[in-house]
């Protein structure tokens, strides 16, 4: 009797492990850098959230890995007049709960995004109103002609949400109830441990390969690397240099790298002496060896920036020649500006270790041309407040051109209407640059816009309110069993095409 029981038990166990084996083969486990916050897209704008929400929600327009715009929930779009866009919505799409998707949800989502305001509300700053013309057509009326609006609609925080579900769940929407139209359906969220998504068999975009995707927040980058090597996870996002080198040398995993939309720069307070003299700013551009910073601090995870925006961003000027490293020329320029004996100043940074190292290199390089620099590490909140108020001399900051369009990467940072908190913390003013940036917002064709941006970047480089430092590269650890993983420059990688060999 006991014997047969034991046998039954063993058979059951074997069967269970067989079943577990086949399910495991279709489950993709992904390690993220931090916990997601909430899947109510209007209440957060953080990377881990968008890395997951990108799989659950669809945007009207999709920006692919090549940063080209593709149809999403909108199949096509055309301008009605200078300030109105018509978007034609996809037919036959259903929400994860079975309800049909209509224009009413789009209007509701965009209006909620504007009125709440959502944390990334800047995306729709140009929008005056959204109206449903019929069940599958909407009109987007703008306050002024604004060419990059289509890119803005592709941002992950503008995923379209289901009005009835959001209102029905109230404050619990985004944690226990999450309803989208995307390739994966929200299954469960174990706080701080994992978020589980299941395949949406009815997705309009075609076949979704993984049956289940499990997202695990693993805050330590070296541990994400170890987990990829041991097979504990299939994909580990954004490895630090040390972990990336280990994965590179591993026998069962490899790296997938992608150039991101993030840049870092040293800025000057262009309204404050001595940095109000362009020659001083140019001199410092010549005095700092940017290649040294790229090689020693970023060890393979960045390349030298040649313009204020990543070369992948639409509108980046590909023909700019970087300032040469030339301390002699720097001393000449300083002498011309009346600072032959140098001067004393400060450089601010937040406690980001790489930025602190950049500040230290700058300090050493500038001592070489007679400028005495004091490095000050400032707490982030204070840093933002005081650089917005113009209390700084030199500072180090970064910018992510999330929209993949030069407007977002240049307007806020160099237009004279944006001084201080809106983004132009160098207090840089050049009327011609203002004109060019304004014109590029309105220009009808991409070619015209490109020309305007090219000229603006030439002027910005000459005036040198920044030292262009780096464009970062992200390295993701991927198990060799995985295929179809194509990292996205904006960081929210699409996973419906990923599969795993047995």
């Amino acid at each position, binding site marked *: 009797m006991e014997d047969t029981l034991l046998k039954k038990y063993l058979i059951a166990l074997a069967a269970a492990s067989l079943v577990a084996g086949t399910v495991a083969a279709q489950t993709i486990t992904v390690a993220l850098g931090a916990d997601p*916050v*909430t899947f109510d897209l209007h209440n957060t704008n953080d990377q881990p959230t968008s890395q997951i929400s990108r799989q659950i929600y669809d945007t009207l327009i999709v920006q692919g890995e090549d940063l080209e715009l593709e149809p999403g929930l909108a199949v096509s779009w055309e301008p009605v007049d200078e300030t109105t866009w018509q978007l034609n919505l996809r037919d036959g799409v259903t929400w994860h709960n079975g309800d049909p998707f209509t224009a009413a949800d789009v209007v509701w989502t965009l209006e909620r995004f504007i009125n709440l305001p959502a*944390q990334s509300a800047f995306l729709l700053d140009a929008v005056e109103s959204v109206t449903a013309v019929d069940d599958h057509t909407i009109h987007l009326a703008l306050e002024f002609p604004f060419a990059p609006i289509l890119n803005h609609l592709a941002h992950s925080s503008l995923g379209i949400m289901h009005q009835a579900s959001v209102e029905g769940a109230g404050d619990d929407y985004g944690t226990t109830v999450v309803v989208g139209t995307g390739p994966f359906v929200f299954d469960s969220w174990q706080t701080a441990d994992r978020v589980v998504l299941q395949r949406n068999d009815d997705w309009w975009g075609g076949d979704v390969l993984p049956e289940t995707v499990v997202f*695990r927040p693993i805050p*330590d980058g070296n541990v994400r690397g*170890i*987990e990829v090597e*041991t097979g504990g996870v299939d994909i580990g996002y954004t490895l630090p240099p040390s972990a990336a080198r280990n994965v590179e040398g591993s026998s069962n995993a490899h790296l997938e790298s992608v150039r991101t939309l993030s840049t870092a720069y040293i800025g000057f307070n262009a309204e404050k002496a001595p940095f109000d003299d362009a020659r001083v700013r140019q001199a410092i551009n010549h005095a700092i060896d940017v290649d040294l910073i790229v090689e020693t601090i970023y060890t393979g995870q960045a390349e030298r920036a040649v313009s204020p925006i990543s070369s992948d961003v639409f509108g980046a000027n590909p023909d700019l020649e970087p300032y040469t490293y030339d301390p002699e020329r720097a001393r000449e320029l300083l002498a011309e500006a009346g600072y032959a004996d140098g001067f004393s100043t400060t450089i601010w940074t937040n406690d980001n270790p790489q930025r602190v190292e950049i500040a230290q290199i700058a300090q050493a390089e500038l001592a070489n041309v007679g400028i005495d620099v004091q490095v000050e590490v400032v707490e982030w909140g204070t840093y*933002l407040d005081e650089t917005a108020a113009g209390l700084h001399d030199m500072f180090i900051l970064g910018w992510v051109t999330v929209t993949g369009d030069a407007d977002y990467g240049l307007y806020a940072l160099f237009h004279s209407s944006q001084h201080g908190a809106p983004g132009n913390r160098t207090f840089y003013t050049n009327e011609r640059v203002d004109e060019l940036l304004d014109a590029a917002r309105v220009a009808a064709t991409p070619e015209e816009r490109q020309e305007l941006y090219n000229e603006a970047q030439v002027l910005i480089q000459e005036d040198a309110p920044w030292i262009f430092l780096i464009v970062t590269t992200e390295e993701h650890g991927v198990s060799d069993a995985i295929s179809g993983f194509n990292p996205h420059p904006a960081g929210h990688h699409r996973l419906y095409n990923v599969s795993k060999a047995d």
Partner: protein
Amino acid sequence: MLQFILKRVVMIIPVMLGVSVIVFGIMELTPGDPVLLMLGERAPIEQQQQLRERLGLDQPAPVRFVRWISGVVQLDLGRSIRSNRPVLDEIKARMGPTMELALIATLFAVVIGIPIGVISATSPNSLADHFFTFVSFLGLAMPVFWQALMMMLLFSLHWDLLPASGRGSSWQYYVLPAVTLGTSALASITRMTRSTLVEALGQDYVRTARSKGLARRRVVYQHALRNAMIPVVTVIGLQFGGLLAGAVITETIFAWPGIGRYAIDSIRTKDFPAVQGVILVFALAYAIVNLLVDVLYGFLDPRLRVRYG
């Protein structure tokens, strides 16, 4: 005894009140604006103002304090301003994994630490004693993150014996984080057991017990160790309380869904209700552990039982 326990329970109330005032005050005084951290560096002033109003942060501090504390006494810790989730739910979800880990780590430290302490104390200055002394100082001196990574490299990557991180359904997931977390407690308990037991073994009553013919074993375990336990229990209690609140690094490295990580994330984003709630819970846990330690004293030391009888 009951009166003693009741008195100690009542004492927790003013402590918690003090803690809540201090926590609220610290959050008010530290720089950084949660709204700016949420909206990003270029949000227009109107948007910042709208969000501030929505979160109730436009009210003066005393108003917010009264509002918060009146929620707290009704066991409502408010909602996180970052995730909009009820803070109490978040804490409950994470308290379990933290408690599990702290209990296992403490158990590990006690079960191994006390016998090692006894061995060292009963043969002081022997080779074994020197070895254990060396190892326990090593345990105290090793940085937690380093130990964690080394163990992961050896047991997960090199030997493929244990999972590297996470909290899965099998016991294997508990081994590395619990050992990492328990190591310094183990070292402290070993040291404390050794020194108090050495002292106890030199007392007159031990000599008396031995001279009336009791076995050495019996004298060590039943007479001396029992008397030596009081400071050891204090250390265990302190260590356990510390493990509840101080598991931040271990939880972060092992991606353990505990409360320490929540505390750090909340502090970093200036999530006022979450930070206040977590600190309050930490303080409460500490107070309860201390209470339990005091009660344990009563069992270990009959004199206390008589005094508070």
